[in-house]
């Protein structure tokens, strides 16, 4: 039995590795290569609307790499501002998600198993509705004669409706609302493994509640904080729907710039360059994240 099984094993192992790699190659590496290729082309009124990188002229093969698209991104302050503003919005909303999500995740992880499952369900439940519909719902809540303004006017707290929709405030609300579960879930799965006796031991040794939090709970949930922050930060940088629906002309985000470049200007090479740079910007935090995770894993195993 055993020899036959182990002969079969290398094939199985190979297949297990190849399937995800093939997936990544097909749906990530190849599309990225195409985007990269387009980012080095020039715009053209043609179908597709960009020039070829390679041209065959008699017996001469020439490669045309147009780095003008990238220089354009640097030259026009719109793009730099959009990148910076996206990063700022992403960082601030990640921080807000962390501040709201951390105590929530902690409270859930300390509940009785039965209540805990209900609480987790409530965190996940909104995602069962379409993302788009939920963001549209916020328009109804935030607009001039929406729920919030009507309520505040009914209370007599304000005379004129507050302008909330199409402001950065609305964008933050939308982002924090939509991405909070992505912060809570990794934090929760980290905290639920936290041995409660460690906190008790710290109390026992004379640490007051705040000291216990700072010197025991916080360091031991660092992995969850980093995982949750990355899961919020990375997609929010490229977020398009929320600033488009809830944001105004003043909210500049790179996802919106990309959309305009692609669909309004029909400048595919510049759009490709914009998304390539965005990816490179995100590679830095992703790499740091992986580096940290690998170190953490190593520490646990050694």
């Amino acid at each position, binding site marked *: 039995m055993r020899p036959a099984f182990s002969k079969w094993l290398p094939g199985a192992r190979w297949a297990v590795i190849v399937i995800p790699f093939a997936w990544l190659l097909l749906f990530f590496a190849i599309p990225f290569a195409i985007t990269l290729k387009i980012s080095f082309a020039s715009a053209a009124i043609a179908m597709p609307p960009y020039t070829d990188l390679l041209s065959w002229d008699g017996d001469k093969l020439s490669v045309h790499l147009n780095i003008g698209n990238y220089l354009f991104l640097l030259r026009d302050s719109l793009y730099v501002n959009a990148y910076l503003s996206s990063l700022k919005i992403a960082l601030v909303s990640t921080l807000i998600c962390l501040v709201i999500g951390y105590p929530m995740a902690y409270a859930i992880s300390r509940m009785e198993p039965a209540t805990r499952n209900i609480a987790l369900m409530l965190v996940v439940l909104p995602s069962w509705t379409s993302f788009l519909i939920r963001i549209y719902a916020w328009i109804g809540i935030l607009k001039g004669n929406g729920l919030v303004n009507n309520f505040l006017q009914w209370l007599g707290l304000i005379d004129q409706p507050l302008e909330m929709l199409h402001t950065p405030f609305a964008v933050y609300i939308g982002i924090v609302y939509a991405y909070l579960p992505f912060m809570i879930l990794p934090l929760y799965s980290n905290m639920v493994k936290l041995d409660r*006796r460690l906190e008790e031991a710290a109390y026992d040794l004379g640490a007051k509640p705040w000291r216990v939090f700072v010197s025991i709970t916080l360091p031991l949930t660092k992995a969850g904080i980093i995982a949750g922050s990355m899961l919020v930060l990375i997609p929010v940088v490229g977020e398009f729907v929320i600033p488009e629906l809830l944001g105004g002309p003043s909210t500049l985000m790179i996802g919106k710039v990309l959309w305009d470049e692609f669909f309004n200007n029909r400048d595919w090479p510049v759009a490709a360059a914009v998304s390539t740079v965005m990816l490179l910007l995100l590679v830095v935090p992703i790499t740091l994240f992986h580096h940290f995770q690998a170190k953490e894993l190593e520490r646990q195993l050694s």
Partner: protein
Amino acid sequence: MVEVNEQALTAAGPVAGSTANRNERLGEEHYLRIDSVRKEFDGFVAVDNVSLSIRRGEIFALLGASGCGKSTLLRMLAGFEQASAGTVELDGVVLNGVPPYQRPVNMMFQSYALFPHMTVEQNVAFGLKQDGLPKDAIRDKVARMLSLVHMESMARRKPHQLSGGQQQRVALARSLAKSPKLLLLDEPMGALDKKLRGEMQLEVVNIIERLGVTCVMVTHDQEEAMTMAHRIAIMDAGRIRQVGTPDEIYEQPANRFTAEFIGSVNLVEGKIDEDQKDYITIRAPILAHAIYVGHGVTGYEGQDVVLALRPEKLVVSKEEPAQPYNKTRGVIEDIAYFGSHSVYHVRLPGGERLMANSANAQRWAADRFTWEDSIWLSWDDQAGVVLTS
């Protein structure tokens, strides 16, 4: 204590003999006073009206099966649970309502609860830092604690780089670093393998005694309690069933529960036949001969009693003993061989069974008993304990 049972021999032996002179060194009564303490969880009574008083420098064990309330009692001493009723007083100060971080009480947790992100040194220093001691003082104290538990060379290691025994040493050093008035041990040896357990039990006791710390420990392991503690409280269903030194608990059980809980025992039910000042006789339906107990018992003629007989107090012989009482005929049904001794399961003529231990003092003894041998069991008039509850 002439003959010694398996537990007493392997575990209580080195300590039980010295119990008397150790107790002389202990301080005044009532250093830790637990008075009518009760704890309820949603209508379930975990600790039911427990009163104990523990002396300064004493090592006191709460022994019981899981769920008997011993851990809840320990957690109330640490301050993690609040008593529903009753008071806990340590060195004249009532501890009720004092949060764990303000009690002069430290605990060595089950499986230690060492902080995984801190080094050995930082773990031991943690409690001292909370007191705001100067850096030099902390460093000196940590070094002293680590040398006390022989862990100086491991100061820079993280807990996961240590073996189970080393982790326990660090945990002990951490819980002793603040010189607590009361040390709590929660299943101190639970995470160690059997061989290491025996060594660590004596070492931990030596360290605690050298520092003179008062200590309450919780365990479900009777060997551990008997080896380490000066006194033991047997707990069952939230109540204390008996408090006493290890040899008192073993040789003088106060009730049927304790007798059955500690070690193995033969329980023979009967009625008091003759109640005299310096002896009684008991008539037991399963025995053809009378039981003679060579001391007076508070009871009355005709009272239902149980005689608790430890297996090692029974003597197995081929010939009928000369004494007219305390003997029975039987057939060896089963033999459990433990190396140092064998346990014979003897079937009485009526079908009931008694256990008798016999020390294997000789290698390959020729006259050893075997299965289906017809034998006599006998015991002397001080061997049994008469239980009325």
